[in-house]
């Protein structure tokens, strides 16, 4: 497995648990899970580009 699928899986599992445990209604759980997922993946992409720029 390469790094990006690993990031996606990590974000999926972690945001599922965060969504269910940190909110009370199913719709708010889903929205919070989606929010966490996008933050996980988005920050990984941004940091990766930053590291690429620094390494040049």
């Amino acid at each position, binding site marked *: *497995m*390469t*790094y990006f699928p*690993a990031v996606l*899986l*990590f974000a*999926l*599992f*972690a945001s*599922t*648990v*965060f969504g*269910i*445990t940190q909110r*009370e209604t199913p719709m708010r759980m889903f929205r919070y899970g989606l929010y966490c997922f996008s933050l996980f993946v988005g920050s990984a992409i941004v940091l990766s580009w930053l590291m690429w720029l620094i390494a040049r």
Partner: protein
Amino acid sequence: MATEENKNAAAGSGTATGTQPVPYEGFVYLPLIAGWLVPGAGHFVLGKWGRGALLAASVLGMFATGLAMHGEIGSEVHNILDILGLAGGLGSGLLYMVARAAGWGAAQAQVTTADWGTRFIWVAGLLNVIAAVDAHNLRTGRKS
């Protein structure tokens, strides 16, 4: 109104908020312990089947991905980080104990992704602790 609230508070065996009756009965720490030992079991005990199944799938998936990436199941403790890793892994409860007893996982990180796999295993344990505490909060009425 106040009389009704007092009645509810007096009737509930484990009222956390004081005014809300708790619909569950039995040992108050059962969901916490069950949830720690078996991922999702804390919610199953409370009849929250959907949430329990999703939590179990997430924790098991994270743990299995860690194993598939040749993550280490902490066998030796050398420094403070190893102790923290062991604590994180133990959060998975029986899953971690069985994996350790069965000799699953790599003895040493030998491929690049193995470090990630080890972290997946640690984080699976930490997520399981969060899920178990959530089950306890449901049981005590702190969360609905």
